[in-house]
């Protein structure tokens, strides 16, 4: 469904992504592994349109979307969550989802209608909240939710926006055990009718969910294949498990790729 070929992206002299290729298929969870600074978030940013690649090609349903602006990709059905929770903290939980759902309305230009009375949009927002298990929290201010619930809200927003491709950047990060279990159940449900790219450090979760695993090191693909192959791979064990948390340049690239840079004017 979503296919990237030969993606390259550098920040200054640092190659965060080098000749990366990845394919996402509907009905599959594709997990992305790699040490900090391997370029995982950069890859998500390239696919979502937060960043544009220096070279390479991104195809979505046979259409070249490499040069397409982020909001156009989102409208086509590519949704993402962020490594650092990225919501509208001052709005209610429902309003966060309602705005996401509203993005799918062809005409958001109505100036004098009451936004809260748009039944279809509201229903979509409510059903997304229900799927993410946040129905009881709808009226709360999003910023007051627990960390785990805010992560759930991120997923709910992507669902409310009716995305078919889900690019999830560490959805389990910082979650308690119970919350993780709930999220894993949710992701399993979503797999059936979505193509999911999952960046995650929680190995148990990855091997429980993934249909396909790609391991990245220093911006390039080290190995890609079904989970069993990855588990058995000597190269992966050497590179990933053998190497402790990164040297200086890798830390730098983690900084550059964690999404904050995307908010700078281009």
């Amino acid at each position: 469904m979503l296919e990237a070929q030969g993606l390259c992206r550098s920040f200054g002299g640092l190659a965060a992504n080098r000749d990366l290729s990845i394919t996402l298929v509907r009905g599959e969870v594709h997990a992305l592994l790699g040490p900090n600074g391997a370029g995982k978030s950069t890859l998500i940013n390239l696919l979502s349109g937060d960043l544009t690649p220096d070279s390479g090609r991104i195809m979505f349903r046979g259409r070249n979307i490499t040069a397409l602006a982020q909001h156009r990709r989102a409208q086509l059905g590519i949704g993402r969550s962020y490594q650092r929770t990225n919501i509208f903290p001052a709005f209610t939980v429902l309003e966060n989802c309602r705005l996401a759902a509203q993005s799918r309305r062809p005409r958001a230009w109505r100036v004098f209608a009451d936004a809260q009375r748009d039944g279809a949009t509201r229903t979509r927002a409510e059903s997304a909240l229900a799927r993410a298990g946040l129905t009881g929290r709808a009226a709360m201010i999003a910023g007051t939710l627990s960390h785990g619930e805010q992560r759930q809200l991120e997923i709910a927003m992507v669902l409310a926006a009716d995305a078919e491709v889900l690019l999830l950047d560490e959805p389990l990060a910082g979650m308690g055990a119970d919350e993780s279990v709930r999220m894993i159940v949710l992701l399993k449900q979503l797999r059936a009718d979505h193509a999911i790219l999952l960046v995650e450090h929680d190995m148990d979760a990855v091997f429980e969910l993934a249909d396909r695993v790609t391991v990245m090191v220093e911006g390039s693909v080290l190995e890609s294949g079904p989970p069993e192959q990855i588990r058995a791979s000597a190269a992966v064990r050497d590179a990933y498990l053998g190497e402790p948390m990164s040297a200086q340049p890798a830390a730098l690239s983690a900084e550059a790729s964690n999404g904050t840079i995307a908010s700078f004017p281009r």
Partner: protein
Amino acid sequence: MHGRIRIAATLLVMAGLIAFPLTDSAFYVELLAKVLILAIFAMSLNVLVGFTGLVSFGHAAYFGIGAYAAALLSPKYDPANLWIVLPGSVLAAAIAAFIIGLFVLRSRGVYFIMVTLAFAQMVYFIFHDGAFAGGSDGVYLNFKPSAAMGAFVPFDLANPRHLCWFVAGLGVSTYVALARLVRSPFGRILAGIRSNEQRMRALGFATFRYKLAAFTVAGAIAGLAGFLYALLYGFVTPELLAWHQSGNVLLTVILGGVGSLAGSVGGALAFVAMAEVFSGWTRHWQLVMGGVIVVVVLFLPGGLAALPLRLRRGFGAGRD
């Protein structure tokens, strides 16, 4: 309970706006019109500062363009047709805002503030140095436009009371329209942009377009205020576009409360009242006014709009 207070307040304001111009004092009728014009101007800026999170420091440009359009579109020795010059002036300001918005909205934060200021100064110098509109002397609007529709004349703007009611009617319309706009899907998008623009883009909103629309709407309404100003005073000078004016309206918005329409109206009332009272006391009244604004910003961060809540909670509660 809350709803009833709101209805009572609405009725009170409406009654006041209808009754006040009946007073014999031409001075106070003009003063009320002045307050209402500043209120419309401040509400228009609140669309940017409060609703969308865009701090424009060049909003006087659109006010001035509206005022100049009123004067320049009117014939010299005859009253113009109100139903042509009014939309004409608003349109002129809207077009200017649209074109300038195309450029300034590419910048953010402090740069946005500076670029809006720079464009406003360019507009200022066009009118100041250009001969087409009287240069630094400005132009006169010799006759108030006629509201005649064929043989039917609904009101006469040469009558100060009628003019004041006309301004009041447009002020109330602006308030109602913008209050609805905030709650509309479009208004929610603006709020989303203010809160987290990058997230809005990731959700699929073409944020630039919505910001441009907000900028154009704000410019159009500022143009309406400028048009009414030209009607009220009968002359237009480049000083209307100067950066002091942009600063004054920004202060009005902050004084009233960023994001609150009622606050903008209250801020306009407070601003004009303070200018009147303080200038009666001393020649250095702007110093006193500056002091008051500093105090408000420090001790009432939400502006006058936050006052009712603050009084209910008590000032002792401290800042948060």
